[in-house]
């Protein structure tokens, strides 16, 4: 690693300040992606601002409208243990491995928006709201392609608010080496319709499969998908699967998620 200064503010406002002054700074969530990246010397910030000591960004509660509110620095392990949104907890319990889940955070994952990460699909399918130190961003406005989000430089995810759907399920098909999602599909049945979000598959990162949403909104069963096909255009091809295979998996996993929801 190139050297950097490590700061551990205890308040969001201090973190924001540290991230906005002239020193080239980067926020450090759980570090489970950033630290390996730094070890490879693929980035060289002058300062890391750890969010791990900010207690106000940790924890899970419910707001007045019944939304599950998860602090940005809450670990995957904590979300996995919560259980009030079972599909979300189940998803969190399969991110990385146990030691990674004890460090990795929801805010870090969403800020990174890895095209194969699990959380983006949950946020998008749940129609969650990403809360930052500056504003609230609807899920549909938040994700902007692989590794791209609506966050500004220095903007911190302080909380994510999840409406709890009537039914939901996440199906993850493992990339066998990294154990990220080769394809992951989060299906959420809300009172006003079904949302289907797909991760791992597309060069453009997480996306909503709108044809499936339409079909499932009128008939929430795996059979409703039978006539649909997923285009392989813009799907990822790599050592672990072709674009066509990923497209195929999207449909298979969506059906399984519906059945399991």
């Amino acid at each position, binding site marked *: 690693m190139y*050297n950097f200064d490590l700061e551990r503010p205890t308040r969001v406002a201090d973190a924001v300040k540290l991230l906005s002054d002239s020193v080239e700074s980067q926020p450090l969530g759980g570090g489970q992606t950033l630290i390996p990246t730094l070890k*490879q*010397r693929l980035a060289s910030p002058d300062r890391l601002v750890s969010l791990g000591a900010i207690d106000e960004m940790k924890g899970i509660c419910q707001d007045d409208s019944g939304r599950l509110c998860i602090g940005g620095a809450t670990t995957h392990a904590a979300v996995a243990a919560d259980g009030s949104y079972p599909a979300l907890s189940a998803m969190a319990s399969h991110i990385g491995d146990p030691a990674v889940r004890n460090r990795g955070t929801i805010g870090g994952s969403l800020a990174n928006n890895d095209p194969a990460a699990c959380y983006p699909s949950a946020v998008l399918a749940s129609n969650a709201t990403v809360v930052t130190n500056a504003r609230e961003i609807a899920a549909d406005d938040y994700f902007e392609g692989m590794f791209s989000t609506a966050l500004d430089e220095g903007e911190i995810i302080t909380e994510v608010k999840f409406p709890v759907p009537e039914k939901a399920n996440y199906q993850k*098909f493992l990339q066998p*080496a990294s154990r990220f999602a*080769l394809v992951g599909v989060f299906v959420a049945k809300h009172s006003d319709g079904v949302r289907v979000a797909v991760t791992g598959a597309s060069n453009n990162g997480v996306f909503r499969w709108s044809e499936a949403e339409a079909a499932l909104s009128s008939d929430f069963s795996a059979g409703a998908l039978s006539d649909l096909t997923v285009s392989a255009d813009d799907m990822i091809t790599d050592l672990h*699967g072709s674009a066509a*295979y990923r497209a195929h998996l999207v449909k298979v996993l969506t059906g399984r998620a519906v059945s399991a929801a």
Partner: protein
Amino acid sequence: MPKDGGIGASNKRREDVRFLTGKGRYTDDINIHGQAYAYFLRSDVAHGTINSVDTSAASAMDGVVGILTGADFEGVGSIPCGWQVTDRFGEVMQEPAHPVLAQGKVRHVGDPIAMVIAESLEQARTAAEAIEVDISELPAVVDMKEALKDGATKVHDDLTSNLCYDWGFVEENRDAVDEAIKGADHVTTLELVNQRLVANPMEPRVAVGDYNAGTDDSTLYTTSQNPHVIRLLMGAFVLGIPEHKLRVVAPDVGGGFGTKIFHYAEEAACTFAAKRVGRPVKWTASRSEAFMSDAHGRDHVTKIELAMDKDGNFLALRTDTHANMGAYLSTFAPSVPTWLHGTLMAGNYKTPLIYVNVKAVFTNTVPVDAYRGAGRPEATFQLERVIDKAAREMGMDPIKLRRKNFVTEFPYATPVAVEYDTGDYHATMDKLEEIIDRKGFAARRAESEKNGKLRGLGINCYIEACGIAPSNLVGQLGARAGLYESATVRVNATGGVVVMTGSHSHGQGHETSFPQVIAEMIGIDPSMVEIVHGDTANTPMGMGTYGSRSLAVGGSAMVKAAEKVINKAKKIAAHLMEASEGDIELKDGAFTVAGTDKSVAWGDVTLAAYVPHNYPLEEIEPGLEETAFYDPANFTYPAGAYSCEVEVDPETGKVTIERFAAADDFGNIVNPMIVDGQVHGGLAQGIGQALLENCAYDDDGQLLSGSYMDYAMPRADDVPFYDVDHSCQTPCTHNPLGVKGCGEAGAIGSPPSVVNAVVDALQSAGHKDVYHIDMPLTPSRVWSAMNGG
């Protein structure tokens, strides 16, 4: 000595206590006062001409102690290759130079260009980034068949082509094999890839060089399976340091699997640099660095043809293999696709005519060398896959077809130049059939189908040649080293025993199993026996641990040395008891005179040897220490039958291993618990090859699977509990312990059973055109196979 501590007992491993408490001492745990840290700047192109390497800016950076480039190694020897293969025309292989640091050209991604030594590793890395390297990139040669075409770019300009050798075996059989195949009732043909793998011991390689200017002695601490071999190769061929001025220490080593046999550039560079900069120099590989600098394994592309008569009797076998050498010849690379592969093509079967052709090819990739099984997995895979296909084509039961062709009379001389001393292939197959409940398979398949899954059963046999092997024979075959093993058995005055062995333990448990043998021979508790290994300063010249040779060869040397010790002790005992030497027996830790109640304890004799007051000084010297070298008369031939049951998810192509059973014949067993563990580990590596692992390059020679993010290592949830059995025992006839070796069997025997099982599953669902899928059988590949891809 109670039986439960000697040969045949599952003694718990004594080395475990230090490993379980964090007190192991691996090479990276060694820090020498004043040490500096090395970082290697490596090529990020696969092939290129080095126009210049400018280190001036880097040299001036903080903490930099010194920078070495290829120019600093002019006059230093080339990294040597330890095996010279002669081709089918009688010509010796093409053998390119392998400089410690690149000179003139870089030939693979990861080829080291410069070594930066600094006060800290991070400083060394930072300085390395400031080295200005001007390289003109050349087209990379990656595909072996392309590499052999006329006009292909040459990896080595001074060679005539990219062909290392064109080996035919047995060349005299070539025409007869062709004729037999032409005239056969049925010929089954299969083309397959045995993909490139990375051994991935969990401990990355480390080298620490140290130089004592006062005595002119050099010491290298290194992660090696064979410190004496490294001392010989590096001292004599690379650095020109006489062996008596060079010590090589391989302390606790975190796994090897072949890839730590070889002499690597970093070892020579650290030893050389320590003297040059006057500081101990330490290099620790990162895992990313390991992927592009550890020798890789396998990488064969093969066409195999099996000719049969109408009843399924094997008549002839012909194979045509391209074997990747990578950019340079690693230490034993040329032997792997030839003598460790071609000689095993008979398998367990009495095929009368066999011809093996292997073209070894240079490419712009990391050198390829022995990896667990080395050549034998490649032989077993193609043979057992083609037999599986033949059974389908002939409409025969795969077990019956195999049994019909088993070798049943021993010793058996194969048409590929080896002689199996002993074995019983029906017995291991019988045992396998007993373990796997083959009759119940139909019900298990029906149950899987009820759950929407396909179920397949794959069976295969394997044989391997290990305990490598007679030095005079391997010498004729091109080895540039002897392949004996050594041991010194030192008995202390108070009766304790120290065995200094040339074998090296890096997970195999020698510290536990070797004492069991000595304990059995003398009749003392194993805790009275200590094993010393891994340091050229205090062990006799030995060839190290690989090829499942430790017990068969190293253990035999130990037995020989112990016998010498015991014979001498008997003389002393005879003197003490005033009896005839011929009447002395050693049992349960005491010497007795046959037919009398006279007895003297082991400890009294050993004391007498060192306090020779009442001692036959005129006949024998004091002391009780003997060294023996054991050079085996033949290889040993472990063999067995394996079975795998898989479930395939037809929607996703995902394969799950439901059951795995192995029935092995390892001859006699010293520690069954350790043997089981060796088989388990081999099975996981074989299953990993079959389903998960793949070292991939792109067309430009860029390494695509350069970390665990893309190189899929088997994890706990990828494998099941295994059923392993080694109750079928036909003891080796030519070593004193009757042992055969068990370290590689699992990795050799398991890949074909997995693939056979998946093909069986797919066939059961009507995919009648699927006879083969190339490894690894990823979900994507299996799905493609089911969907006409």
